[in-house]
């Protein structure tokens, strides 16, 4: 198996809980990475804080595990200082979508040359299962005992509206599709955003009757709709937002554009 070409086996077993979808995302990522034949010595991994952000510490490459929410800003500096590096960012829905929301939309807007994977488990895993900006309306968490009164972000949609070049979403119940969009993203320029919805059985699952990894995964699978399907059904963009509210997960490639990347812009290419 190719896992430990990419990951630090001296740190195994990793810290993630049984059935945690971060681990599945890691399996998919290493496969995409290896398939694309990227040189680990020419990459750097950056992350914020959260369970999902711990991935950087397991990759056998230069890696910067930064502060909560700021991963993209660190990554921006790193990438610009050494443009030969392929910079990958691992982040979570809290890290990216709550505290880090501004850096997220700004990096999308700049079309910064980064490859970003957001592991979206619909809650803050690391701190024990509080609501995040992607916790679905009405769902339970340790801070929304009466059900979440807020509406979730559609992170992928937001990335697209902010200007990211490549945006795709799948779940950890779709490992092959995840690998496919990861690889596709690796072949694009500018800001590439992969949103992976995953199981956090220990917290999100526990509060929402999806206690076992398998229950959680099944829920993810059953609630996913492909974007082409949505389009075929005549749903418009604005409906998407509300579908999300209803608990549906639009999967697929949300945006695939050719806007100049930040580095292309500053290097004055055309």
């Amino acid at each position, binding site marked *: 198996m190719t896992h430990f070409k990419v990951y630090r086996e001296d740190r195994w077993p990793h*810290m993630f809980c049984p059935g945690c979808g971060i681990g599945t995302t890691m399996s998919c990522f290493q496969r995409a990475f290896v398939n694309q034949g990227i040189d680990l010595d020419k990459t750097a991994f950056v992350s914020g804080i959260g369970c999902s952000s711990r991935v950087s510490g397991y990759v056998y490459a230069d890696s910067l595990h930064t502060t909560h929410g700021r991963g993209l800003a660190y990554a921006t500096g790193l990438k610009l200082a050494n443009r030969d590096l392929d910079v990958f960012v691992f982040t979570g829905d809290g890290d990216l979508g709550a505290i880090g929301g501004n850096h997220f939309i700004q990096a999308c807007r700049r079309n910064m040359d980064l490859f970003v994977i957001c592991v979206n488990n619909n809650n803050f*895993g*690391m701190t024990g299962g509080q609501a995040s900006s992607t916790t679905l309306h009405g769902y339970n968490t340790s801070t929304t005992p009466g059900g979440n009164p807020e509406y979730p972000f559609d992170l992928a949609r937001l990335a697209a509206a902010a200007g990211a070049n490549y945006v795709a979403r799948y779940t950890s119940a779709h490992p092959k599709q995840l690998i496919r969009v990861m690889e596709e993203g690796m072949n694009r320029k500018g800001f590439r955003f992969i949103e992976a919805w995953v199981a956090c059985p220990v917290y999100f699952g526990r509060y929402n009757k999806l206690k076992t990894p398998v229950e959680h995964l099944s829920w993810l699978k059953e609630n996913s709709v492909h974007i082409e399907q949505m389009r075929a059904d005549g749903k418009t963009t604005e409906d998407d937002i509300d579908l999300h509210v209803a608990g549906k997960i639009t999967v697929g490639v949300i945006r695939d554009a050719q806007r100049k990347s930040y580095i292309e812009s500053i290097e004055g290419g055309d």
Partner: protein
Amino acid sequence: MDTIEIRLSGFGGQGLIMASVVLARAASLYESKHVVQTDDQYKREESGLYVVQTQTFGSGVRGSATKAEVKISTKEITFPEVTIPDVLVLMSEASFVKFGENVKPTSLVIVDPDTVKSRPGGEYCEIPATVMASELGNKIAANMVMLGAVVAMTDVVEVDSLKSAMKDMLPPATHELNSKAVDKGFELGNECGGRIQVDWG
């Protein structure tokens, strides 16, 4: 002995912090028969034992070694942590590695034989809490088995106090199972040789 220091250790998910709180709560709120303590600093404490419950917690993620401690005393408790415990409960191999050696000759060491591979050099008791709890219906109640055993071997609180505290803390649906677990542990503890004497006056 006017103070007893108890350390419960194992891995996350075994409910040892919960167990320590139940025990501490029992001692703190349900043991009012004991001498009333007054002194200048704490003059508003009117009754009962002095109790401090503490814990270390690993990073938010499950699986890492946990430690939960209870200090019970007839005197004001200043330094709140347990340094060398009078009672040490070990429920995982990792906890054995970390805490197993940190005892004194008089310490009572209780091991769950099914979750701990190694054995202490000195004297110890075996309480098969996990297996017993499984037999009672759910291994999650292993913590209560252990508490029952600790109480049997120390008299630190009454079994009734323990149960009352347990009921305060846990959902009603689990009361029966946990009560049985406490009783079972009490029984096992009584069968065990090792004993430690507290003196609540």
